[in-house]
């Protein structure tokens, strides 16, 4: 049974539709990420699950029960905000204990539960301090402790890492995932950061302009994007106009740059037959080389236009004929210089195809 179900949900603000008709199942115990750019409706969905917003149409089910009319304080959810939202006039321990006061927890057991939650987030000694005495990362851990100490049915995380520094964000990401796996709580995580989504999720829901674009495991949405939007939003992709010329046991698409490309059928699930199509080539699958490719690998001559050196990797903008392409390559010595003539290597099995 799914822990949370959005059934034919629509949310309008006046004449603006923030969420178009959406149906979504969030499996029990899963870490599900709502991923998309700002304004895609991901936070609106989260706030509707939380009970902070009412859906205009449709039903929200938590644990199989319709909760549209259940007020937020009776939904038993853990909510973590981007800006931590700790109560500044209460100590850390009082913050964590806040939710327990409204539950049937005997007073004598509260300190032990608070301490267990603080231990879980690896901040066992800060109970007497005030939130402003802690760093941003520590505050977010306390916010997490406060949300999970009440043993919520669902944990809702609204961009919890966005306010943190880059390094801390990656540490917290691992930490958050560890805690979630340990307590096994169903988690809905909202982010605009694709690397967070890919690293943490069991399931990613990619959203754009109030619609769900694709639902899948991280490697599914990454390797087999269901739409041009997904291909562009997750990582860097080259999307070229192409034509499907063979659609059977194998799928063959032809475009102006790479010629005929045999795409694995699994990576063109939405392509229904011959006709206009789009070829999706991940930037990191396009390798630059000074030599032509061996047999079985597509090889296209090109000129390097721009070099964006990033240390362990380099991002090239190259021109092959009329088309500008992006390539992200790992390097161990010197990158190609701008203006260099190179060969682009591409394995056909690394390509995906979309309907045109």
């Amino acid at each position: 049974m799914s822990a949370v179900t959005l059934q034919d949900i629509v949310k309008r603000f006046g004449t603006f539709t923030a969420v178009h008709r959406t149906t979504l199942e969030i499996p029990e115990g899963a870490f599900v990420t709502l991923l998309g750019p700002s304004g895609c409706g991901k936070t609106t969905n989260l706030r509707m699950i939380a009970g902070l917003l009412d859906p205009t149409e449709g039903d929200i089910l938590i644990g199989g029960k319709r909760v549209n009319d259940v007020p937020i304080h009776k939904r038993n959810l853990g909510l973590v905000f981007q800006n931590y939202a700790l109560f500044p006039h209460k100590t850390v321990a009082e913050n964590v204990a806040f939710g327990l006061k409204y539950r049937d927890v005997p007073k004598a057991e509260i300190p032990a539960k608070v301490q267990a939650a603080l231990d879980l987030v690896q901040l066992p000694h800060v109970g007497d301090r005030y939130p402003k005495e802690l760093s941003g990362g520590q505050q977010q851990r306390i916010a997490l402790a406060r949300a999970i100490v009440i043993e919520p049915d669902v944990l809702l995380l609204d961009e919890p890492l966005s306010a943190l520094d880059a390094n801390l964000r990656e540490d917290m990401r691992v930490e958050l995932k560890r805690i979630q796996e340990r307590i096994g709580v169903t988690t809905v995580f909202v982010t605009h950061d694709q690397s967070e989504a890919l690293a943490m999720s069991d399931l990613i829901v990619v959203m754009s302009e109030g619609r769900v674009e694709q639902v899948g495991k991280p490697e599914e949405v990454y390797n087999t994007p269901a739409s041009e939007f997904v291909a562009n939003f997750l990582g860097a992709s080259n999307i070229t106009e192409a034509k499907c010329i063979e659609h059977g046991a194998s799928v063959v698409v032809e475009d102006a740059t790479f010629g005929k490309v045999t795409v694995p059928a699994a990576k063109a699930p939405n392509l229904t037959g011959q006709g206009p199509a789009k070829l999706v080539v991940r930037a990191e699958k396009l390798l630059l080389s000074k030599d032509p490719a061996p047999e079985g690998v597509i090889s296209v001559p090109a000129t390097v236009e721009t070099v964006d050196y990033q240390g362990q990797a380099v991002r090239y903008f190259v021109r092959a004929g009329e088309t500008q392409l992006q390539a992200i390559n790992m390097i161990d010595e010197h990158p190609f210089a701008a203006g260099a003539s190179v060969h682009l290597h591409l394995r056909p099995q690394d390509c995906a195809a979309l309907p045109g």
Partner: protein
Amino acid sequence: MSIEAREARQPWILLSPALGAVLFLLIIPLMFIVVYSFWLRSAMGADQVGFYLDNWQKALSDRFYRDILLNTLKIAAITTVICGLMGYPAAYFIARSKGNKMILLLLLMLPFWISYIIRTMSWINILGTSGALNTLLMTLGIISEPMQMLYNEATVILGLVHFLLPFMVLNVYVSLEGIDTNLEDAATSLGATRWEAFTQVTLPLSLPGLAAGGLLCFVLGAGTYITPVILGGPRDAMFANLVFEAIITQLNWPLGSALSLLLLAVLGVLVGIYNRYLGMAQLAKGLG
């Protein structure tokens, strides 16, 4: 001159007009008043220069002055409490309203565009014997004779609340604006009802604004002079009226000086107590 020295001087240069104004318009006149309070008004009408404690003795020992001082503080306190009770919900409503916040704040400031005296006198047209309320009640046949509603302590308090409410609303509004609305959402998600979230989170966090507004209302209310003159009866004089009486009517500047310094000292002590517990920083924030 080195850059450091110039930078060190810059704040003082920028501050000098304000410091000059405070010095010449406040501190020096206040010194005059201190000096005056030790002079003595003779039977002839001329002030006797010297160091006499008679005015202070009178101001501090006369029951008449003491009663009026206590009554003044009582009226200011009642006004402050009413302003707090009425102002808080209004400020909360403005702080939580979406979109039309600016219009609501503008409406709040609108009374300041009209003279305080005119605003106070408007109550005569409402509560006077031939005022709007009496006329309405008589037209409806509820009363046959006009009621005497004006010129008592209640109307003085009414006038003060009318005058001071915007100060309270603005101070509470500023502190409510500074509170993250996610805090209430967080509290309700943890199981608190809207009301519990308010009393547990929002109210304690907005107390500094309430206290700052309260202090302003109290000090301005205790120092008021116009309201009791226009809306009070003969027995509703407040302390500032005594100062006016002594200086303008009796031309007894030394006594008037001692009385005004007494009020200043009492309010100063109360502000000091407030500062001890809540801090002036909050007041500055509320005014800013």
